[in-house]
């Protein structure tokens, strides 16, 4: 049993190498399927400030709305369904709920409502669901998924009534809820915003100039000088501002920059955080690509998108859980020749990224 101590929790890393010019490039689907994005972090080498179009793209992420103490049966409200769920894409996530302790709820743009419930709540709700994939011995967590756009869930239908009764009278679930809508924004959500306490959250943008940054070189995607794991370790160290010097006097970090390496005199790290829509993330990637169509200053850029640790889903409707960590993220290394390296990572209680 002692050998187990040397192992860390299981995690999955899926790496994809392709080009934006390639006909069958799947980047768009992979980005769009990652519904709930908490933070986008962009690393631009040899850059003091973001070029204006890129800066504009970073500052134009859609706002999200935080509703306080929203009773969950309101997500079945007919006006809300008409304005938000049936039109465009709605993104909703329960706020400050823990996927391994509490009830968590997600509303996907496909119209699916995902409820991650513990056993007591599930049994009292009375709607059919499946045990969580990550249950240990006894079934302590259940996932109920209903498609609100399906004909069986049309208002007045049997499925609809059953869920509504369950949420209204049998369990009265209530939670703070983060909501966003594309392309309607706040307008599409006014059915709920008008009746509950809400605040608007504009995504926060922050930037930091890093100097004398060791960096693996050359960073191209067709001849990677280092393997994905080492690259991600280095990128993670840069993002977390952990030193890669591995000085003998320091006991905090033994991380090193992969060889061969060069030192960048400066690099810009820009971060956006909030409930970020995948459409906005993809728009940012397109803008990055356009930056190279004109001039070729830097040869690469790295974009890391972090998901929510407590979201019930990671990519698509794949179940997401939290054992020791709730990571579900992807890192994109975009090169000036439009080729890229995409690394998607998830944790122990997760399915495989697409």
């Amino acid at each position, binding site marked *: 049993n002692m050998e187990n101590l040397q192992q860390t929790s299981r995690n999955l890393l899926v790496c994809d190498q392709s080009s934006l010019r390639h006909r069958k490039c799947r980047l768009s689907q992979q980005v769009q399927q990652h519904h709930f994005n908490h933070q986008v972090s962009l690393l631009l080498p040899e850059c003091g400030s973001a070029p204006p179009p890129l800066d504009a793209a970073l500052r134009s992420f859609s706002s999200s709305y935080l509703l306080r103490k929203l009773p969950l049966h309101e997500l079945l409200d007919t006006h809300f369904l008409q304005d938000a769920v049936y039109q465009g894409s709605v993104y909703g996530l329960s706020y400050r709920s823990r996927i391994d302790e509490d009830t968590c709820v997600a509303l996907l743009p496909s119209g699916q409502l995902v409820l991650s419930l513990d056993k007591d709540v599930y049994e009292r709700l009375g709607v059919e669901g499946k045990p969580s994939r990550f249950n240990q011995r006894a079934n302590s967590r259940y996932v109920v998924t209903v498609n609100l756009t399906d004909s069986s869930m049309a208002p007045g239908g049997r499925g609809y009534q059953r869920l509504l009764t369950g949420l209204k009278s049998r369990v009265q679930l209530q939670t703070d809820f983060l909501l966003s809508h594309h392309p309607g924004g706040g307008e599409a959500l006014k059915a709920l915003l008008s009746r509950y306490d809400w605040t608007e959250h504009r995504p926060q943008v922050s930037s930091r100039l890093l100097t004398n940054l060791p960096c693996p070189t050359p960073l191209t995607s067709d001849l990677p000088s280092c393997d994905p794991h080492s690259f991600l370790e280095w990128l993670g160290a840069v993002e977390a501002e952990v030193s890669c010097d591995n000085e003998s006097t320091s006991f905090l970090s033994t991380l090193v920059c992969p060889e061969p390496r060069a030192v960048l005199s400066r690099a810009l790290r820009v971060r956006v955080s909030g409930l970020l829509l995948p459409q906005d993330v993809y728009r940012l990637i397109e803008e990055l690509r356009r930056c190279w169509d004109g001039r070729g200053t830097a040869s690469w850029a790295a974009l890391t998108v972090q998901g929510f*640790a407590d979201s019930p889903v990671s990519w698509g409707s794949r179940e997401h859980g939290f054992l020791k960590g709730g990571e579900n993220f992807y890192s994109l290394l975009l090169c000036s020749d439009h080729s890229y390296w995409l690394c998607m990572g998830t944790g122990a209680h997760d399915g495989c990224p697409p």
Partner: protein
Amino acid sequence: MSVFMDLNLRPTAERSTLQSLLDTAAHLGYSAVAINYVFEPTSKKKQEIPKPTPTSELFDKLPTVQGRSRPIRVLNRLTIVASDASHFRPSAPEFRSFDLLAIHPTSEKLFHAACMTFDVDIICVTVTEKLPFFFKRAPVSGAVERGLVFELCYVPAIRDSTTRRYTIANAVCLLESCKGRNVILSSGAEKPLELRGPYDIANLGLLFGLSEGDAKEAVSSTCRSAVLHGVHTLQVSADTRAPASCCQKPGRPPAAPSTPRDCAQAPPTRPAQTPPTSRKSPIPGQRLQTNLQPREPDPPPQ
């Protein structure tokens, strides 16, 4: 998984220490704790079974659990340390005022009896010295089948390196017989500095030989089933009334204000909770603060 619990907080004479112990437990993310009253009967003189102090007298205010909107729940537990059943009556009615009943057997005979027949919820495993007996599969499986749990305390391992060795050795020994099932990890803490966060204790479980999933259960779901077992036993014993000779009114005296029902059954409304600390931070690893690194709660997004 269910909420995190620490079922062994040791009260000292100082009320303020107990209050800060509770505050720290809530801050670390434990949603329920049990105040453990220890009773060591000897054959020499007749001792009184301690009565639990009502929660409202012990604590000015029940703190809110970090990141949630509910206050921490406090249960009462009695631990009997004995080597012989003749030192106490296993189904004394005084036991009913506690939510949880634990026994710490120091002899093989009592261990066997406790596993197979006693009306207890938790069986404590010695961690401060060499095991007085070996764990045999039969009583351990019997206990597991009856829904009893085995408890391992971690605070002695923090206090001293010799007890740390005994803790690990005894834990490994236990886990060989029970295969990781029905084990809870609790503190046994008397001071706030001795408490550790639930994820850290789940990691400690790995040292004892638990798998990752089992170790996390040992601080959450298994504790919950021990509490439910306690509630069930109380309900059953309320029906089978004590004989009149023990000078108690038939039926249960009212439980201490921390009603076990409250903890055992899910409340009808389950608000997913709110206050400031930003849990959406995707940085893996440190989800909840440990004692040593206070983290400022992130300001709520503008």
